């Protein structure tokens, strides 16, 4: 039984995903790694009790059992690191979603929401609250203006299906598919974040 392999596969599974994009939570591998920690812990206990029954001093008597227990301790801490790394890296992406895509869980694109575990959804909500309360106290929105401003206006073309009657800062229009618009950048940014709009090749002022 090769210890530590499950943990390794778990972290590898995360690493194989596209940078910054979530894959579904690999609960099978995750639970198997937890299971392995239990086995490690069980073996440590049995080796210690065996040494105690033999009347040996567990700390200083460096016999085979002592090192056996040590190996399992190391395997357990390694598994713990893998589990924590897996949860930590996913949590990093969850935070990034709050910043880049939107602070309201239900407004996230459905394909992203599917990939979040219940715990991660809670974490998302908590983290959004932290960001919102910071912004509230300071009176400045920080999840906007991610890209250096060019002209206050921007030219976009609608590629996704967006509901009708779009409310913009001072005007309303329809974002029907394939229509083109020249509007305030801040009005377009939420839709760009959910990549329903593209910059057509002819940016304002750029080459037509």
């Amino acid at each position: 039984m090769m210890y530590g392999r499950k943990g390794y596969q778990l972290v590898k599974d995360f690493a194989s995903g596209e940078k910054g994009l979530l894959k579904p939570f690999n609960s099978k591998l995750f639970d198997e790694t937890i299971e392995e920690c239990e086995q490690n812990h069980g073996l440590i206990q049995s080796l210690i009790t065996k040494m105690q029954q033999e009347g040996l001093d567990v700390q200083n008597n460096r016999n085979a059992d002592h090192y056996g227990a040590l190996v399992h301790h190391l395997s357990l801490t390694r598994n713990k690191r893998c589990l924590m790394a897996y949860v930590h890296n996913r949590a990093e992406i969850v935070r990034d979603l709050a910043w880049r895509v939107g602070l309201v869980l239900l407004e996230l694109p459905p394909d992203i929401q599917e990939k979040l575990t219940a715990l991660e959804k809670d974490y998302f909500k908590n983290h959004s609250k932290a960001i919102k309360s910071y912004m509230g106290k300071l009176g400045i929105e920080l999840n906007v203006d991610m890209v250096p401003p060019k002209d206050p206006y921007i030219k976009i073309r609608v590629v996704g299906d967006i509901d009708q009657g779009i409310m913009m800062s001072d005007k309303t229009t329809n974002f029907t598919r394939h229509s083109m618009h020249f509007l305030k950048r801040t009005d377009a940014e939420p839709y760009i974040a959910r990549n329903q709009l593209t910059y057509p090749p002819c940016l304002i002022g750029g080459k037509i």
Partner: protein
Amino acid sequence: MAGQTDPHISLFSPEEVEFMGEDELVEIVPNMNMEPLNFIAGDFGRFVPQIPTQVPLWLAVALKRRGKCTFRPPQWLSVDNLTQILEAEREPQSKFQPLPFSYVEIARLLFDHARDDIPDMYMVRSLVEDIRDVRLHKLENNLGSFQGTSAVKMDNVSAMEVNLVRPFARRALEAFYKHDKPEADTADRDTRSSRQPREANNEPRRPLRQR
């Protein structure tokens, strides 16, 4: 989203490098009357037709796009000057020639928005591209010659070049630094250990304790 740097690595996106370059002052010739502009970034204008004035690049581009001015290309952006610079850059073992810190961004913005204000614009653009390529090539070559030291001076380097070479240089310099530091006495092993990125400390300091 394009244009926004990955917040986790302290690197600037090309859009951000251009943004910083847009504060450089350039000369324009307005074709209309306009009151002085008192911006947070500073005071500019009284704009009088045909009287040249200095404004930041972002303001100049905005006025040009609205048909309100023409550019006076900077002195360094001419076929003769750029030819000399290219010839000097191509000299073997030559140092970088002096160019404005954001010369790449200024050139690109002028090519995009002020084509008709730059004489022989396509020749100028080819020369700037060649100069940029020669300099990047030189930068990559002398990456290898960095000695194991904590500080490496770079003369006349530009914003884009710094931003481009930073990740490679950082890795090379960190590797040099880690391997051939002057021998420190063993006493402060801890300070050295704090240098390596924090890895788990494998050997237990104290023997296994009874649960």
